[in-house]
């Protein structure tokens, strides 16, 4: 076999991952993906080993629920044939490896820097003069936006090439938020420090990233997650989904100047995140999720509170959505705006909501199940138009679905508490992968331990890593005035991407 098949949250000895030569590695991964829409690349990264670079590629199969891991040893000065030349979904992964280690991928369309990390191979390349696609024309003009944007949001640089009001091309340069998180995971030795790091990867996906870290850590410690711990995480994940989707629908209303929807949906987010605070002391669930623990007890009183919060939320939410989704002036802004086709979505390897909006099933909750999702019998919501309207509809319907799941979970509140002390040392020479469906989509954390059971590699992939390209494609041929709703309808993460 050229690869090893493992399941979500499974730990295997690093030695069990086949080490191929590059042409074999190339062919294996290309043939795994070609003509297999049910498979996609969840992570592809490199790390220093000896005097070379070890590459690890993880391909997930959504039907067999397996993840195929293969590896390869290359020299940093080597020139390798680019996998992107065959499949576009490797595009950013190869750029990342090139930026970090200097490995050159031949026939890659453009080795543009991804995020200018502090430990990049070429220190002479700096953000100030990042390379960009330019065009020389009498008719066209360029619009540059950022890194600081008009609203209270994170930084990124957007460069539009426009013909009059119409966008021909958008290029997005990120990296401004780079804090060196992956390296800090190795430097910080205390478990509590590492959980805190996971909580600070992306403040709007705290439950998502922290759950991924915890499942990974537990798997590497040989700890079997307990149903009561799964209950806490599933509940936190679904509450996060309800809260952020509500806020995003509000933001979409803001950007089409629909004041009523913006205010009502904006205020509806508050009771949900306030409930998270009642439970765990923090509106964005920081401090709530810990490896091997049920940190803040979920009592009968909290359960009654949550039922009431949802019962109050639901009629108001349904009422404003019914109004929003029948309002001609709103629909005319949402429908057929920012469309991405199924083929494009599949080719670029988009995940989560950004894939489901165009008819592609990517939902780790069913395809690589974890936590209590198998019991909830989750059925992903799929739309087919790939426009802002589809993305708004998915949010609306997923909120309804998440509320049903939360209510179902509240039927069986575990009465046992968990408080296991997990070791600071992990299984030595092991590899593990954890996939969690955050509200944006698939979060992937991978780790490798050394012979002393210490972390030697920690690799994080936020769904935004794949999906930023979907936004760039969505705005093509749209009016530049529609960029804000396209952007909000994806609501991708800057810090999750920049790490």
């Amino acid at each position, binding site marked *: 076999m050229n690869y090893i098949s493992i399941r979500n949250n499974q730990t295997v000895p690093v030695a069990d991952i086949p080490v191929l030569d590059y042409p074999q590695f190339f062919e294996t991964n290309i043939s795994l993906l070609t003509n297999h829409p049910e498979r996609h690349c969840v992570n592809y990264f490199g790390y220093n080993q000896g005097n070379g670079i070890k590459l690890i590629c993880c391909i997930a199969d959504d039907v067999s629920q397996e993840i195929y891991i293969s590896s390869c040893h290359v020299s940093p000065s080597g020139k390798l044939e680019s996998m992107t030349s065959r499949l576009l979904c490797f595009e950013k992964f190869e750029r990342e490896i090139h930026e970090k280690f200097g490995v050159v991928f031949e026939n890659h369309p453009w080795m543009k820097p991804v*995020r200018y990390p*502090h*430990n990049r191979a070429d220190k002479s390349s700096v953000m*100030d003069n990042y390379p960009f696609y330019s065009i020389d024309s009498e008719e066209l003009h360029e619009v540059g936006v950022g*890194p*600081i944007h*008009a*609203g*209270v*949001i*994170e*930084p990124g640089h957007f460069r539009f090439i426009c013909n009059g009001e119409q966008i021909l091309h958008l290029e997005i340069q990120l990296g*401004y*938020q*780079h*804090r*060196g*998180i992956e*390296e*800090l995971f190795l*430097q*910080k030795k205390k478990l*509590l*420090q590492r*959980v*805190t*790091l996971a909580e*600070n*990867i*992306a*403040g*709007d996906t*705290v439950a998502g990233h922290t759950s991924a870290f915890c499942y990974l850590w537990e798997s590497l410690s040989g700890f079997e997650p307990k149903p009561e711990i799964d209950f806490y995480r599933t509940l936190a994940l679904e509450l996060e989904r309800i809260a952020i989707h509500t*806020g995003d629908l509000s933001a979409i209303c803001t950007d089409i100047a629909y004041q*009523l929807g913006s*205010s*009502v949906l*904006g*205020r509806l987010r*508050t009771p949900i995140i306030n409930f998270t*605070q*009642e*439970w*765990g*002391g*923090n*509106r*964005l669930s*920081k*401090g709530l999720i810990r490896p091997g623990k049920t940190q*803040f007890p979920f009592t009968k009183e909290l359960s009654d509170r949550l039922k009431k919060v949802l019962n109050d939320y639901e*009629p*108001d939410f349904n*009422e*404003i959505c019914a*109004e929003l989704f029948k309002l001609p002036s709103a629909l005319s802004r949402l429908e057929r705006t920012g469309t991405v086709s199924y083929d494009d979505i599949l080719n670029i390897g988009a995940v989560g909501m950004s894939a489901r909006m165009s008819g592609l099933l990517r939902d780790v909750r069913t395809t690589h199940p974890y936590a209590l999702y198998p019991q909830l019998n989750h059925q992903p919501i799929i739309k087919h138009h790939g426009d802002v309207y589809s993305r708004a509809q998915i949010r609306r319907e997923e909120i309804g679905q998440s509320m049903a799941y939360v209510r179902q979970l509240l039927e069986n509140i575990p009465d046992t508490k968990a408080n296991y002390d997990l070791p600071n040392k992990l299984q030595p020479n092991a590899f593990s992968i954890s996939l969690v469906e955050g509200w944006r989509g698939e979060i992937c954390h991978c780790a490798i331990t050394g012979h002393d059971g210490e972390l030697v590699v920690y690799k994080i992939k936020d769904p935004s890593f794949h999906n930023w390209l979907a936004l760039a494609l969505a705005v093509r041929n749209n009016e530049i005035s529609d960029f804000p709703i396209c952007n909000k309808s994806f609501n991708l*993460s*800057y*810090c999750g991407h*920049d790490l």
Partner: protein
Amino acid sequence: MRTRLIKLFAMLSILKILYHQGKQFIPNVRTAQVPGIFRGRPVISTNQVNETELVDLCPMNAISSNPVSIDLGKCSFCGECALKFPEKITFTTDYKISTNERERLIVKEGDDFAIEVNPATVRSEIRKIFGKSLKLRQVSAGGDNSCEWELNAANNVQFDMSRFGIEFVASPRHADGIAITGPITQNMAKALEIAYNATPDPKIIVLVGTDAISGGIFADSPALDRSFLENHTVDLYIPGNPAHPLTIINGLIDLTRKTK
């Protein structure tokens, strides 16, 4: 006639939605209570505990011993210390923890008094010029989007900060100061400096969240460049991870106007 009827029904449904919302705004943001187990200003008792263990527990290195103290500029408000040493540390729901003096963020053993803005050290032009209207340009410099969310929430219909004349504006040229979130990354250092320089004088600097105040969990990362803070004076520290909207609003009010 028909169109008029349709318009009338459309308006009625809007009025119905408005009616169902009721009154959403928090009438008094100075005295509002936060629900549940919110972790605000901590109180440290004089009980004896194993101090080495307590200091070692904190993931943020925010706790010091002899006397035991917590630096809220470093604290992530995770509450682990209060869970492990309940007889020593309790977090109160007091959300008014913003101040203009960095030392005031350090809560010592036995202290149980409010963390306040010291009016004596507030620059005189701040209250004179920004007392009734304050426009801020927000700069996220490596922020994780949690403080940014809470700054936005401070202006939603519930917290409604704009009723005090405090708002965020798009351009630094329209602003009276900048509000920084995040530990300030190398890649954002220059943009931050440019935004600050583009803001007309007199101007203020507000740090929102633990990451901005001390670097937080990222404090010793080589990807940061915090030299901006060495070269400029900070006018307000708003702690939290993220800072609560009520902490933000009360801090800005206390800085810019006489309240008592």
